[in-house]
Every structure is written in C-alpha cells, then in structure tokens.
C-alpha cells in the first residue's frame, strides 16, 4: 500500500554561487517520479533562483533557470514564494519568471505555479508537510 506524503523542498540559497539551487532542482526532478504531493518554497536568497532574464553566457556556467518552467510537466505545480523575502531584496513578483502548469482536469488550462505567500502562510504550509528537504 502506498500512501501519498507531502514533501516540501525549502530553497534558501541564491543560484550559481553555490551548488544548492541546482542540487535541489535535481532532487525535485528525481523525486517527481515517486508521485508524492510535492511543493517548493523559495525563501530568503532562494527567491533569486527564479529571477527572470538570467544570462550565464559570460560566466561559462549552465543557465538552469529554464528547468523551473518544466516542473509543471512533472506535476510539481506549487511553488511558494515568500513575499517578505522579495520585499527585503527590493523585488516584486514581476521580477520572477512566469511559471505555469497545465491542468489536465480542466482541459489543460494554464495556471500559475507561483503562489505568493506571507511568512505566516508559508510557516503554516510548512507545518502541514510530512517531510521538508532543505537546500
């Protein structure tokens, strides 16, 4: 008997400077094969991971930001972004990529993957998880 569990990936690091963001994405994609209830949380410098317009041509590193757009295809459709973390960095939701997923039950209607939440709402969502993976 398989029981569906709630998994949250907690992302708190900026991309490129360390390997955390890329590793998190790798684990999310692997974990997606297990058909659990998966969500991602972007908190603190983690919000920088999904900035739009990333251009790594001159640094000689792979720009892995387009991969976040593919998460919907793996049924990873809940990306919580903490409002306070954006504000502290002078960012708004318009600075982030427009990430969507297609709802099979509603004739493949496109829906937003990003869920803008307050610190309090995120803390609530976190408390409802069975497992939280930190990156």
């Amino acid at each position, binding site marked *: 008997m398989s029981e569906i569990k709630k998994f949250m990936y907690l992302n708190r690091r*900026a991309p*490129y*400077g360390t390997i955390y963001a890329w590793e998190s994405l790798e684990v999310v994609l692997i974990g997606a094969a297990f058909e659990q209830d998966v969500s991602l949380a972007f908190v603190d410098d983690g919000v920088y991971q999904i*900035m739009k317009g990333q251009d790594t041509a*001159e*640094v000689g590193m792979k*720009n892995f930001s387009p991969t976040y757009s593919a998460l919907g295809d793996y049924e990873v459709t809940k990306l919580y972004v903490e409002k306070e973390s954006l504000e*502290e*960095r002078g960012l708004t939701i318009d600075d982030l990529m427009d990430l969507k997923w297609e709802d099979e039950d509603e004739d493949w209607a496109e829906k937003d993957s990003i869920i803008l939440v307050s610190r309090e709402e995120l803390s609530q969502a976190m408390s409802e998880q069975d497992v939280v993976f930190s990156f």
Partner: protein
Amino acid sequence: MSELHTVNKSPFEKSSLESCLGHAQEGSAVLLLEDGVYGAAKGAAAVEAKMKAATGIKLYVLGPDFKARGLSADRLIDGVEMVDYAGFVDLAAEHDKVVAWV
C-alpha cells in the same frame, strides 16, 4: 598602500559586505562578484544605505556575475561601475594588493 577588496557573498546571508565596507579605507576599491553582486542591486533599502555610506571608496561590480543572476545594468545602485573580466584584472594590477572578504 592601495587595496582592492573583493566580496563574493550575498549581503543578505553573510556579513562580508558590511565588514568589508567597515574596513576599506578612502582611496581603496571594492569589487562585488559572484553572490556578492546582489549588494550592487537597487531596491533593498538596508543594503543600499550601506553602499551609499561608503564615501571615498570606488565601487565596482563584475558584470558577467550580475547578468547571470537576472540583473541588468539599469538595476545598478548609482555610483557603482560595472566591469568585465579584463576590468577585474586591471583593478587587481592597479592596486598594491587584493583583500578577499570571503
């Protein structure tokens, strides 16, 4: 002795930028690179205030690292100059030594 200080950590995660600016003397230069480049982006009030308080110090940001992170030149804090890798080498050569705030 003139110094080139480098900061490669996010100002939101580490105190490297604050320490660096607190120790950099007039006439020295500070270059933000890697995750340090977030310190050169407009809009974060606390960080911007620290950068603007650094008078008499030349402030630079490494363009390739700034762009990699989705930041464009129009988001640069006033007074910060963008340099490329060749500019980084020139800065290192122009100063007597490099002090890295890792």
